[in-house]
């Protein structure tokens, strides 16, 4: 039987009660979420408020935990690929890539060159789609409704293109161990080529409509300043770290796949605030278009799946491997341990959103509640990815 500590109040659960123990005199404990329109899913943040100001905040996770890591232990490596499409609905192909890359590293499997280019093209398209989703949803958080309509207009074009090789629109399981499932056909390549100038013409419009808008600038400039050492302490990666001026882009630093042959920049911003992270993502979309255009020109003919690619019954050799790719939200890492058996022994998934969210507790201290929502949105959180 639960005892109610505050007879005149409704007692919270374990997290709230534990959190309330350290509450200051006269403060208010408030639960943001788990079902809250501005948290993009089932994220819950317990905050202690003094008037409008946040004294403390604590994210509570696990409402969308689906045991992906455990499921990897009861399936063979090839059978686990559909799971990777479901970890992150924003950029499913990034997760596809991290997992198949780790298995290829473990098994010493070579990937045909064309498949590498196809991987780059599709995952960069997926990155733009993910950033567009973030852009629309973030502005929705800040109270602007129309931008998401423009964003989804463009995002639908990308989904239509990606539907041709992958067959699905959101939860792709397209990459295979040793290549990709199907080649980009002529129709698909033509549509990507048509999409690039279209998207380039849209980005200045986004700037006019939203980026330069004084209301947005007042909402995000100087809000949520994250110092580089905070990023390093919490392990933040991706646009969050680059928005704080840390030049960490795995496409540049790790040099995986064919990225060393491509000419692009990994944008950073010295602003360190929500505006910096916003700018980084907007420039990244432009850079992704450059990458795709170069890849289409450089893509050689040939196979997209290596001969003798592993079947579902393939057993990974004994050993360990770690492979990381640059996802839309940061470093996606997969650590595999195999004991030579039918299934993998252990699969550790490193989600960028988890680390990016963990610094929220520190950054949100002393801000207004409405600004905390602006900070939360600028971290680009995808809750299924955080909980895995």
């Amino acid at each position, binding site marked *: 039987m639960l005892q109610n500590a505050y007879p005149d109040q409704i007692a919270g659960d374990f997290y709230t009660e534990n959190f309330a123990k350290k509450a200051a005199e006269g403060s208010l404990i408030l639960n943001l979420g788990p079902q809250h329109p501005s948290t993009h899913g089932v994220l819950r943040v317990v905050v202690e408020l003094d008037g409008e100001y946040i004294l403390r905040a604590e994210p509570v996770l696990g409402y969308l935990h689906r045991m992906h890591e455990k499921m990897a232990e009861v399936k063979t490596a090839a059978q686990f690929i*559909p799971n990777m499409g479901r970890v992150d609905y924003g950029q499913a192909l990034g997760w596809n890539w991290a997992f198949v890359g780790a298995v290829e590293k473990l098994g010493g499997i070579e990937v045909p060159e064309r498949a590498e280019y196809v991987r780059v093209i599709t995952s960069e398209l997926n990155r733009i789609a993910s950033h567009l989703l973030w852009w629309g949803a973030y502005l929705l958080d800040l109270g602007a409704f129309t931008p998401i309509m423009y964003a989804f207009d463009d995002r639908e074009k990308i989904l239509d293109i990606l539907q041709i090789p992958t067959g699905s629109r959101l939860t792709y*399981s397209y990459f295979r161990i040793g290549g990709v499932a199907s080649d980009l056909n002529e129709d698909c390549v033509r549509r990507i080529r048509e999409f690039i100038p279209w998207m380039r013409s849209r980005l200045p419009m986004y700037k006019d*409509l939203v980026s330069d808008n004084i209301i947005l*600038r007042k909402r995000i400039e100087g809000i949520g300043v994250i110092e580089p050492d905070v990023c390093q302490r919490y392990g933040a990666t991706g646009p969050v770290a680059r928005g704080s001026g840390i030049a960490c882009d795995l496409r540049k630093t790790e040099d995986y796949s064919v990225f060393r042959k491509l000419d692009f920049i990994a944008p950073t911003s010295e602003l360190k605030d929500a505006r910096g992270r916003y700018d980084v993502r907007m420039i990244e979309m432009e850079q992704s278009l450059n990458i795709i255009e170069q890849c289409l020109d450089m893509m050689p003919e040939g196979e997209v799946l290596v001969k003798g690619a592993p079947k579902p019954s393939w057993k990974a050799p004994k050993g360990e491997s770690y492979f990381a790719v640059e996802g839309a939200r940061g470093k996606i890492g997969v650590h595999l341990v195999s004991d030579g058996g039918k299934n993998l022994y252990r699969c550790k998934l490193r989600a960028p959103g988890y680390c990016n969210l963990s610094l929220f507790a520190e950054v949100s201290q002393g801000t207004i509640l409405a600004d905390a929502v602006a900070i939360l949105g600028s971290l680009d959180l995808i809750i299924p990815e955080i909980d895995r």
Partner: protein
Amino acid sequence: MNAIKEALKNVSDLWSLMVGLKVTGRYFREPQRTVRYPWKALSNTDTYKGHLELVGGMKDPFKPRCISCGMCALACPSNCLTVVKRKAPKPTPEEEKALAEAKERGEKPKDKTPKDPEKFIYDFSLCSLCGTCMENCPAGALQFSGNIYMAGYSRNDFLFDLVVKMRESEAASPAEPAAAPAATSEA
């Protein structure tokens, strides 16, 4: 000096709102981008990969190409396929006699059981449409259908026997396939 700067900044701030409104006005004049879905057909459904279906043979398009080897069921990550093999037909007395004679001569009897499956149970509610079954099928007997209009009232509506589905499609084949939503009429 500062007051002038402040005033100029306010003007430029106000101007940024005007620029945004100009964009809105420009797009306001453009035709609608969305599709009035139930009344108009979508244009992007041809490349969609829907639920699984069996591929017909070369000679008879309504006899499955499947050889009941069960590789698909083994490869499936979510165990949504069950292939039931056909039982050998009961031999007639003459065949039994011939079999016994062949056995005496030391010959191995030839298996005359039809290879196509008796049942091919497919649970669409478990399927994640990854395509592993198709890639591992030695006979190329599985494919994705383009059916995006699948809906049901209960979970059992998505549990079907693909062999029966194939026979149904044979029965329905003289007529036109399921009519797509009318493209012209708009309510």
